[in-house]
């Protein structure tokens, strides 16, 4: 009886780290998927906002939709700030769950960040392509893995100027 209990204990001691590693890995994998979807949704919503919010009649008109800095880091708790309405739209994808990417670890990059003068590919001359990239530097729980993994997604819209 005593020998059997000791054997179980040894077996458990051997197996437990592997199980915990699998458990943490599974949790990280699930969270990475979740954040991956958030990042993809966020980039898409931000680029769609820029494409919907036409026409842009001047450089300042275009700039008013964009963040004051490019790249822009974070998702503010309130909308209407320096992040601009496009990032506000993208940040909607990141709320509401403890699994979400922390605001401080989100980085937005928009290209172009100034209104192009002529694209040369549009019949109207001033339509252009805009790409929003959202990046989340996700902290992992699993030992033996790198402490952070970078998850990014881009969305490209065609801004049609009427």
């Amino acid at each position, binding site marked *: 009886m005593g020998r059997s209990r000791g054997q179980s204990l040894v077996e458990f001691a051997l197996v437990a780290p592997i199980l915990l590693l699998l458990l943490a890995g599974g949790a990280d994998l*699930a969270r990475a998927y979740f954040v991956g979807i958030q990042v993809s949704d966020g980039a898409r919503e931000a680029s769609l906002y820029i494409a919907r919010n036409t026409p842009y009649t001047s450089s300042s008109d275009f700039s008013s939709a964009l963040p004051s800095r490019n790249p822009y880091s974070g998702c503010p708790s309130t909308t209407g700030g320096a992040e601009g309405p496009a990032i506000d739209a993208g940040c909607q994808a990141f709320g509401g769950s403890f699994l979400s990417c922390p605001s401080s670890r989100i980085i937005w990059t928009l290209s172009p960040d100034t209104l192009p003068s002529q694209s040369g590919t549009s*019949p109207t001359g001033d339509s252009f392509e805009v790409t929003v990239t959202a990046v989340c530097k996700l902290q992992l729980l699993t030992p033996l893995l790198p402490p952070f993994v970078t998850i990014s997604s881009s969305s490209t819209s*065609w801004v049609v100027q009427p």
Partner: protein
Amino acid sequence: MVLFALASLLIIGMAGLALDAGLSYLGQTGLQSASDNASLAVARMLAVDYSSENQVPAPGTPWGYSTIVSTVNHIVGANGAGSTRATSYQAYFTDGSGTKICQFWPTAQATCPAMFSLSGGLPEASGVLSASGALVIPTNTHKTNVLDVLGIVQVSETAPATAIFGVVKGISAVSVGYAVYDIYCPTGHPLAVGEQITYYSPQWKKAWPCANLGDANFKGDLHSPSPDPLIVPGWISGKSGSAAITPVKAGHTIVVPMIDCVDHGSQCTEPVSPGVCPASLPAGLPTSGNDVMCAVGLIAIKAITNCSTGSTCTGQVVSFPSSQGGILICPTIANPTCGNEIGTQGSESTYPELLK
């Protein structure tokens, strides 16, 4: 150890399953970016074509069929990366309700480019506006990582998206001056969306006693010839107008505010009881005197056929929003040249706008 080995197989199998399902779901979100952006681009381009062909409000060069197709190709390709990239896609033009009209990718039905033959602008068929948007359906087919053990060697994700444009259902500051002059009421009252109606084409000046002000910014009651005071509610009077009179083209949507009177002195008397008005009206309307305003609203009418100035034309009610007080008391017409003018000048608005 045996138990652990068996359990490990189960755990690894489930983890693998989660891996494939998760990758598939992640891939779908990437495809959604492709379809959302591509369909939005098409709707925007069609809106430009609409403006171009209809010369409102700021006509640009139409994009035309081939440019639209190549742009969709480019946007679908530019969205997604690696496993989330679309391996194929289908694209269709749709009408204003999102119903497919014709497929233009990967194979183009002959009716698709043919629709653009008219001035290279907005697709039209039989003289009636047809294409108002696009449905894009990207698909990504890829091999599985773990599920192939179970015989599922590949999976497909798809993420369809539709974007359509329409016309502003209201008065826009951008006016080109079509005027719906007389709306001859059909049998049913009030008007309903989808109902076919007959209306007078732009004919601003009419013979006495129904002469009107001819004011470029006139947007109110046609029954009130000068020097009667013109009283219009604020949501109309705040907008600018135009005196230009242009024949209405098939497919054009005409949006006009409506103010009708039940009693306007000796000039135009309608066969309805004076003073009978709906309970709720926008502020600013006279509810007593010679100009009791009884029908207020906005109506959007799509012309079914081309309509020259001064002729009687056929159109279809597109929108008749009650949120704008959109009710219409339509009496039996005693005198079609006088009695039942509903409409205005300088308030037509065909500014294209995305609907979804």
